[in-house]
């Protein structure tokens, strides 16, 4: 092959990280009744985040004081944020009984996402489909049961047959309503979070690998390496923002679905 016609990157052996950076080998191989329960890095990180969320709330509210200080102060601010900005805004007073679920959801998603920018961890937990899918299914089951418990079987009638439409049109609309409420909602909830985390992790990886590559090459690339180093740092800030935003979006949409199940549509 004629070397000079090859692209520069290929000739010098630069390999951009691809989707394979989301795959981790098993640390402990475990299979129970044909179900793969192996533990890999992602599972360990999930345990860690779960422990961290539990520990933070436990330490903060173990001995709650009337005038909060330290950790209790921080965690109360967080709970207040979910209470005022999400629960009261979207569902209203009736929704306060869902505050524990929504707070847990928010904090767990947030900490899972933050792993993507945390030094030494550097992997977003929600960049694997398992967690977003399970959390979306939780939200789906929750809003269905909220609908059934607050409206009875009429919940399905209200959800599938929007009022004020001539009955022959239901033939056209009921399949759409069914798919949009019970399929598209959980699927988009999970994919929105997953895709954001995958994209963010890939961008960060490509930028840092390329920065390292350019800075260590002994030619003009070093200048571009410096530029991309600065940009990489800005991207970390951006990923921090995305981590928070996606946790917020996941939580607020779960709250919106619960609110929709509490009262029939008018």
């Amino acid at each position, binding site marked *: 092959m004629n070397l000079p016609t090859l692209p520069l990157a290929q000739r010098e052996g630069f390999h951009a990280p691809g989707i394979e950076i989301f795959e981790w080998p098993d640390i402990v191989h475990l299979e129970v009744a044909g179900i793969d329960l192996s533990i890999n890095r992602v599972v360990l990180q999930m345990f860690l985040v779960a422990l961290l969320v539990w520990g933070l709330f436990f330490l903060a509210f173990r001995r709650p004081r009337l005038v909060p200080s330290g950790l209790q102060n921080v965690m109360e601010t967080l709970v207040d944020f979910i209470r*005022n*900005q*999400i629960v*009261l*805004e*979207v*569902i*209203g007073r009736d929704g306060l009984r869902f505050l524990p679920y929504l707070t847990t959801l928010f904090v767990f998603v947030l900490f899972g996402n933050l792993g993507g920018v945390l030094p030494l961890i550097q992997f977003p937990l929600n960049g694997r489909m398992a967690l977003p899918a399970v959390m979306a299914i939780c939200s789906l089951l929750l809003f269905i049961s909220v609908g059934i418990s607050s409206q009875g079987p009429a919940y399905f009638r209200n959800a599938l047959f*929007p009022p*004020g*439409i001539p009955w022959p*049109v239901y033939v*056209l*609309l009921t*399949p*759409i*309503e*069914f*798919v*949009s409420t019970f*399929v*598209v*909602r959980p699927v*988009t909830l999970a994919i929105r979070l997953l895709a954001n985390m995958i994209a963010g992790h890939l961008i960060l990886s490509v930028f840092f690998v390329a920065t390292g590559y350019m800075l260590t090459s002994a030619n003009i690339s070093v200048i571009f390496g410096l530029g991309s180093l600065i940009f990489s740092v800005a991207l970390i800030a951006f990923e921090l923002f995305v981590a928070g935003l996606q946790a917020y*979006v996941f939580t*607020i*949409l779960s709250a*919106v679905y619960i609110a929709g199940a509490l009262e029939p*549509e008018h």
Partner: protein
Amino acid sequence: MSDSGPPREPSGRGADVVWSIIGTLVAGVLAWGFIGWLLDQWLGTRFLVAVGIIVGMAGAMYLIIRRHGGG
């Protein structure tokens, strides 16, 4: 938040409206596209999946306009 003051419409639903519109559009295409595909398999035709997608889009737009369109 405060308990006094005039009652107001819950805000924070802007994102909800956007996602609801996108979700309904996607659902329309998926639901009727799938029905069209099933009919295609059954009847041995090939055009019903396209018809289904268009029908689903039309239905989804009707739903969106009813739900979010001004009135």
